[in-house]
């Protein structure tokens, strides 16, 4: 069989088919990678949020009244005392902590200070968020603020909107020893 090569028309048809295929495959890959990235970042955000909520939940469950100012809360700031069990140098001890969450330049900030002889302070940037909204249930109604009151709220509602993806999450955390009849 003699080697004849390609004609111009054949070459053009070949190139066109190749281009169409390349563009389709590239587009498919691109959208695949984009959605992969999106899901990844959303999952990350979800996991950050779940971790944050599980820590917050424990802190609010273990909340205690300490001296005169036990609990202070506004729309985007919350400050309370809680007990944490921490093991240091082989001794496991319950420490009283003063914990506050607030917003600064769309970062959720947590500060925690251990009281007394073992004083220790920590300042943490947790995550970037669009907005946070705390609400406090008194038993009859939801309040946007909780200050200068002698009793603790019964339930705290927290709404957080992440800065990316418009991802929103709401959680209700009861303060266990402030709820009257458990049975």
């Amino acid at each position: 069989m003699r080697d004849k090569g390609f004609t111009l028309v054949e070459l053009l048809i070949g190139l066109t088919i190749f281009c169409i295929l390349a563009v389709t495959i590239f587009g498919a890959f691109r959208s695949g990678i984009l959605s992969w990235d999106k899901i990844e970042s959303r999952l990350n955000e979800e996991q950050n949020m779940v971790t944050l909520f599980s820590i917050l939940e424990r802190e609010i469950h273990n909340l205690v009244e300490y001296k005169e100012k036990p609990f202070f809360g506004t729309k985007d700031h919350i400050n309370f005392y809680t007990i944490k069990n921490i093991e240091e140098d082989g001794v496991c001890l319950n420490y009283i902590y003063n914990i506050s969450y607030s917003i600064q330049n769309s970062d959720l900030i947590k500060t925690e200070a251990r009281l007394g002889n073992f004083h220790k302070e920590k300042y943490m940037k947790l995550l970037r968020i669009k907005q946070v909204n705390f609400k406090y249930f008194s038993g009859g109604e939801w309040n946007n603020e909780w200050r200068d009151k002698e009793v603790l709220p019964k339930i705290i509602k927290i709404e957080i909107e992440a800065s990316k993806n418009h991802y929103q999450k709401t959680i209700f955390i009861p303060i266990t020893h402030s709820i009257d009849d458990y049975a």
Partner: protein
Amino acid sequence: MTMRKITKNSGVIIIASFWILIILSALALSIAYRASVGLKLMQYYKNQIDAGIITKEAIRKFIELSENGEYAYNNPGCFKDIEINNGIFSIVAQEKDEVSGETIYGAEDEDGRININSPFITKEMLLKLPHITDDFAQDIIQYRSELKKGLSRIKNIEELFLLPSFNIQSLSTILEFMTVYGGGRVNINSAKKEVLTALGIDEMLADAIIAYRDNCPITDMEEVGLRNGKDYMTTESKCYRLNISVKAGKINKKTTVILEKGSYKIKYWNES
């Protein structure tokens, strides 16, 4: 070489498809790995939520059983390894009993401890407890009286750890013998020997009381020859302490709850 020649070589197609297969399965594996990590994390959070629910169920179950007249203090049949909502809970009063060395399942009586908020508890009484230094007892009494001026009281036992003279040696004594909850008077039906002697009862009588109450609960203090001390001793209990340990999947969660008798109001909650 022309296209035809290449495709005519035997095995080219099969090798190409093998390559494609390998690349695709690598892709599939990486996706599966990513998904399994996510699944494991979700399983962890699910177990954690389950553990919280089981803890609350355990309290409900405890209330229900004690309302129905079940013995609350040493009752392994009711409080040991109870299965509930795909998890297990037990309520442990004491890991190791001093006499038998066995674990006691059930509630602990909060009124078996000395309530340091009670004005009848003096420095001398605290000093009779093991490992309490003179400075520390003094600090406790002073702290209490300072709070009392502001019509307040010690609300958490953890506040004692903040006193300047606190040292680690007295930690177990505080955790075992002292409380800030309950009715304020020590229940001689459940108080340990150290507590009874700290209240001014001599050792012989303390041993006799413990032997007596093992047979039948004391209903009147005069039964065991105690005429004085009704201000700080009683034969009734007002609070339960529940040490609930829950197992849900791989999660072990321990929660200590202090529950008021009758009203079943939660006075204290601490979860790990």
